[in-house]
């Protein structure tokens, strides 16, 4: 059984011809429909009939220009979005690293942020508390471990996020946890 099995997946987004965000916009839009104008939008197909499978131990890289649907495909596999058509089967569990520093908050300290991010990535809280010091050390941020994240430079923040991401991944693999069978970056 493949770890990831993507079957005839389609995903579209709407490109509106008018912007409708508030109820008022929608009322105005509905009124203009009554006047005979139609609510118009185009369907933008980001993905059309995508089919592939990945076995355990295989890797797949996807390259393409901006807006060609790479992230959309990853988001579908990670279950963040749903496809319009087709099926996606995954076996085991998934680590999606669609972005570094998920859940980071500027008002929390470096250590507090590390705990939140690590737990979201799938580590147990107890495990994470043991590792925080080594994560902060690996990111070369020991001096700043109790500083608020917002006082760090953006480079330092990325270093912290990266350090947490690879340490949690390493730990989850080492423990042969069933939580991680596929990862998308």
């Amino acid at each position: 059984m493949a770890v990831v099995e993507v079957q005839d997946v389609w995903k579209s987004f709407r490109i509106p011809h008018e912007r409708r965000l508030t109820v008022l916009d929608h009322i105005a839009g509905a009124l203009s429909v009554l006047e005979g104008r139609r609510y118009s939008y185009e369907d933008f197909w980001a993905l059309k009939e995508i089919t592939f499978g990945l076995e355990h131990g295989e890797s797949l890289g996807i390259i393409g220009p901006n807006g060609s649907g790479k992230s959309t495909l990853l988001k579908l596999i990670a279950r963040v979005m749903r496809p319009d058509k087709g099926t996606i089967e995954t076996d085991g569990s998934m680590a999606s690293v669609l972005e570094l520093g998920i859940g980071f908050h500027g008002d929390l300290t470096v250590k507090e942020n590390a705990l939140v991010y690590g737990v979201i990535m799938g580590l147990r809280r107890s495990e994470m508390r043991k590792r925080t010091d080594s994560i902060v050390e690996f990111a070369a941020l020991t001096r700043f471990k109790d500083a608020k994240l917002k006082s760090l430079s953006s480079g330092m923040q990325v270093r912290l996020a990266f350090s947490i991401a690879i340490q949690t991944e390493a730990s989850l693999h080492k423990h042969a946890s069933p939580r991680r069978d596929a990862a998308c970056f």
Partner: protein
Amino acid sequence: MIVEHEGGCNTMLDNAHHYFDVITVLAQKDFKVRYRNSVLGFLWSLLNPLAYMLILTLVFSLMLRVNIPNYTAWVLLGILIWRFFSIGTGQGMVSMLGNASLVTKVYLPRQLIVLSNNLANLIGATLEFVALLPLLAVLGVNLTAYALYLPAVLLCEFLLIFGVSLTLSSLNMRYRDFNQVWDIVLQLGFFLTPIFYDPNLVPARYQSIYSLNPVTRLIESTRTIFLRNGLSSLYDNAVILSSIVLLLLLGLLVFGRLEKRFAEEI
């Protein structure tokens, strides 16, 4: 359609542990963030209801001479219960917007984000009550063993807030107007709930509808526990429990239906 093959019991237990940890860290995060960057921190959560208590006492007890025994304590209990509801639903409603990366960049049951935020507020409300209990005693409230029922009241209110927050937060993802609408509903609610006036003043023909407000029943239960030294009435409990069931079902249903597009709408 997305099929996920889970590795049986082990993975389910693994997931449960994972979700439990996620709820814990997110609730802690929301609670900490609320008081960061302020000098007085949690003290504000006490000063705010105390200020309301003083204002309402001044206006209604001293100027309008409302005839309710121990009005100050009576009004404080109403304020604390109302505060939990209005802040809990108001923050729960925007909890996903404030955690956009948790919605768009990683898979989690999104209900957990709302639940964690509500939990942070449950902890806040509980601490407010505990910190203000001595004040109730000073105001002449006879603290008896009935006070031990307070956690049950707060837990019921938490479940009620969770149900309402699920509906509001998912609607607010589609139309950001709901945030403004809810602000107005809460203002109206402040007057439709007996926070500062005697609920018996409401004309008899409106009583049957008026008394169905679950927040009113929570406030009345709290006053019964502390001021009348008794247990909340069967009617209170019936309204509260059926509202919880109805609002939770509605919330889970609406949330489940709208959730599919959250990542695109945020």
